[in-house]
């Protein structure tokens, strides 16, 4: 090469010459850059380059993530949490990897579309087209395997579905599934295998195919858009400029997706928490908890929706939907270069590809519409149908009886389909919001100063009253007891359905004040729906307690204050005098102590609850364990099971740990992160 410089060559030039003599690098660079672009550079040729760029981004970010990731059932979620919330820049690194993977799927579709529309798959480029299809499957394989690696609820459940579908493959299905899963069940080896696939086998294979793909691309040259009307251009810098602009645009979109929430939060004046930016991390994978929010990543949503077409066909339907149909589609695509030789073949190929993408888009749209219908549904319009649906359970005869008019009944019944869709969507959205709350709570617990126990984050979540309390309560207590803030607008409706006391705020002064209120004591929030509706306590509150000569308002307040203090949920600022007066009243045998034991007031147990330590953890655990104990309701216990007392030759309904979780949750005793100073 001629030097553009005059005079003696500089040291850099000399070094370049030295290396060129021994490696021929200038020739290689020259060959790489000075490729002719027939008809000049065009934007439509950028997709292949953006895909290479996206892959390189994944390699870079993936290697750095690898440096901090730990693939095992006890450390995968934990290490990803650490990357996301603790490591400087971890959220950005993970965010780029996560969203570039999604960008890659879109770029793949665009690249394929451009190749098919331009007829670039035809002779002599058939082999390269096939290589491209293999590359596409490898990329999708990496997306699928990568989804599991954080070992969170969504990755775990999506992978269970995907691997179960693999089990439907004829002849070798079960073996294939067991090999992929790494054993008969999901665990350490599922992660190590998926990780080896995701970061080793698949990318290594991809690089091999990519090298051949690019080599063949250079051998055949760029397939120009026909007809060529403009003069030829050069890859460097004409086409490469367009390519790099497109790469930059792709990266800008990815960064935008990560950073826009931060900008929005900043504009709204709220705090920006780096750990909450970028890729989502769900709650730790838990095979023992239902996960109704389970969905595959959006680019596989069409397949998820497609499988619904075969609902009711059983395993045959899934086999058809998940294996046969996608297999046939891949086969048609592999045959495109051959079909393309036929006169109308090319048109068929273009129509097929467009149709396929349209189908994918339509199915994705349908799936989203079903899931998010409640967001945009006209609930006003469906209000009456929804009411009738809930009342009649969709029985048309009952609807007719209720409406009276045949035409109207038919119109209402015609909306039942929409109502069902609305209900399903509402359930899904509720599951999504539960999943989000669980994820936030898990991250909050992991962030405690004492960090995650060696058994892993799932252990931490399972021992958390805030995470487990509501579930255990709903499962074991909620069929009788309500747990609803009386201030909520729908509280009355919920209380009306309950058949035992409302335990929201149990142990607090507010709860006790309600109990001692003659208007409320026989209401649904207290004894109203129980066998004690006309019991001694109701009689006392509505009778004796109303005698203003015996029970001054200050006395009642003192009793309320002392009971709240007894449960440990009282106001620490209550004057000692009030407490002393309260204790005196509660213990006095002519007041509360006439029925209730309190401390050493000597009242026999068995008549009414022991008020010593009322509402405290030990007291609550005791009553949940065995309400028929003489300390509590004794023989007058109304329906409440003895949850912690084993019946003959059977395990108790709840373990001691579960009872403790319910008690702690009712008392609001769970870990709260220290707030910033000044807050």
């Amino acid at each position: 090469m001629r030097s553009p410089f005059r005079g003696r060559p500089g040291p850099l030039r000399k070094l370049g010459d030295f290396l060129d003599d021994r490696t021929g690098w200038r020739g290689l660079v020259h060959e790489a850059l000075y490729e002719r672009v027939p008809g000049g550079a065009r934007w439509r040729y950028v997709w292949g380059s953006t895909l290479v760029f996206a892959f390189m981004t994944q390699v870079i970010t993936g290697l750095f993530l690898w440096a901090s990731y730990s693939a095992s059932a006890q450390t995968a979620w934990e290490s990803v949490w650490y990357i996301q919330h603790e490591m400087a820049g971890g959220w950005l690194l993970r965010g780029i990897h996560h969203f570039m993977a999604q960008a890659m799927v879109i770029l793949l579709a665009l690249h394929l579309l451009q190749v098919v529309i331009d007829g670039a798959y035809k002779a002599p480029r058939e082999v390269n087209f096939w290589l491209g299809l293999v590359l596409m499957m490898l990329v999708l394989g990496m997306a699928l395997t990568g989804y599991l690696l954080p070992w969170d609820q969504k990755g775990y459940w999506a992978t269970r579905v995907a691997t179960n579908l693999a089990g439907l493959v004829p002849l070798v299905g079960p073996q294939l599934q067991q090999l992929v899963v790494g054993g008969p069940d999901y665990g350490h080896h599922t992660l190590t295998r998926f990780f080896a696939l995701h970061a080793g086998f698949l990318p290594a294979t991809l690089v091999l195919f990519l090298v051949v793909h690019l080599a063949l691309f250079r051998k055949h040259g760029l397939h120009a858009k026909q007809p060529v009307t403009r003069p030829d251009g050069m890859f460097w810098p004409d086409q490469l400029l367009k390519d790099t602009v497109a790469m930059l645009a792709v990266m800008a979109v990815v960064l935008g997706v990560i950073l826009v929430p931060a900008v929005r939060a900043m504009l709204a004046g709220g705090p920006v928490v780096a750990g909450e930016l970028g890729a989502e991390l769900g709650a730790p994978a838990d095979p023992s908890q239902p996960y109704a929010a389970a969905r595959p990543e959006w680019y596989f949503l069409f397949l998820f929706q497609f499988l619904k077409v075969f609902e009711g066909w059983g395993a045959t339907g899934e086999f058809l939907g998940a294996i046969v149909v996608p297999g046939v589609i891949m086969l048609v695509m592999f045959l495109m270069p051959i079909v393309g030789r036929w006169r109308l073949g090319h048109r068929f190929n273009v129509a097929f590809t467009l149709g396929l993408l349209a189908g994918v888009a339509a199915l994705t749209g349908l799936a989203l519409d079903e899931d998010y219908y409640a967001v945009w549904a006209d609930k006003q319009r469906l209000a009456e149908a929804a009411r009738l649906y809930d009342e009649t359970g969709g029985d048309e005869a009952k609807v007719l009886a209720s409406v009276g008019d045949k035409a109207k009944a038919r119109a209402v019944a015609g909306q039942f389909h929409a109502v069902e869709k609305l209900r399903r969507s509402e359930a899904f959205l509720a599951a999504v919001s539960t999943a989000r709350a669980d994820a936030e709570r898990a991250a909050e617990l992991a962030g405690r100063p004492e960090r995650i126990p060696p058994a892993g984050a799932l252990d931490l979540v399972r021992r958390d009253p805030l995470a487990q309390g509501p579930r255990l309560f709903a499962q074991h207590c909620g069929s009788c007891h309500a747990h609803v803030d009386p201030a909520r607008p729908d509280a009355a409706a919920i209380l009306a359905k309950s058949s035992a006391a409302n335990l929201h705020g149990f142990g607090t002064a507010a709860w006790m004040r309600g109990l001692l209120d003659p208007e409320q004591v026989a209401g649904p929030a207290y004894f109203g729906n129980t066998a004690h509706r006309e019991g001694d306590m109701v009689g006392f509150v509505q009778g004796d307690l109303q005698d203003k000569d015996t029970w001054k308002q200050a006395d009642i307040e003192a009793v309320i204050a002392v009971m709240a203090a007894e449960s440990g949920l009282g106001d620490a600022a209550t004057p000692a005098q009030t407490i002393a007066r309260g204790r005196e009243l509660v213990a006095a045998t002519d007041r509360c102590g006439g029925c209730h034991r309190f401390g050493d007031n000597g009242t026999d147990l068995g008549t009414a609850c022991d008020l010593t330590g009322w509402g405290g953890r030990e007291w609550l655990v005791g009553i949940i364990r065995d309400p028929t104990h003489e300390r509590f309701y004794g023989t007058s216990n109304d329906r409440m099971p003895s949850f912690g007392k084993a019946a003959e030759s059977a395990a108790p309904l709840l373990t001691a740990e579960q009872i403790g979780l319910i008690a702690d949750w009712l008392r609001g005793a769970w870990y709260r992160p220290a707030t910033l100073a000044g807050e």
Partner: protein
Amino acid sequence: MQTTKADGDRDSAGDTRRGFLAKVAALACGGLATVAPLAAGVWAFLDPLRRKGAAATFLPVTELTAVPDDGVPRQFAVVSERIDAWTGFPREPIGAVYLRREKGSQQVEALSATCPHAGCFVELEADGRCFRCPCHNSTFTRDGGIVQPSPSPRVMDALECQVSESGAVSVKWQNFYTGIADKVARE
């Protein structure tokens, strides 16, 4: 190969201002696009530099009566809670020290079991007369002094040791840089 033609094209186009700008722009765009993942990666990779080890604190090791006053060192485990990235470990052995006591003395000397040469675990010879490092044969007297010739640049690292009135022995647990003549504590 189109080398001749390409060379011609390059020469005619390469000198134009437009061609130069296009090259600069292409390099800038490509560079910018690649900087983001690289920077995020390096940023996260450098995270360990922000981390500090646990502050050196006195950890209870044993009782005075468990250290015989015969001048022979004995090995004791140092037990403590420990945080390793995301995992918080409950109390477990995190290292070992050698303790020894002279005849009739109430003072206990503590030596770190880490060899000052390259950080291996120094072992006490079976007869209790000297320490020997299994890696490069650094040999130390039982009070930690160097027995020459030795690859170790300094004597064994003494640790601060306290004996409470009730006889509880605790040691200030810290690590020192190895391979240098000076005893410098790691932060």
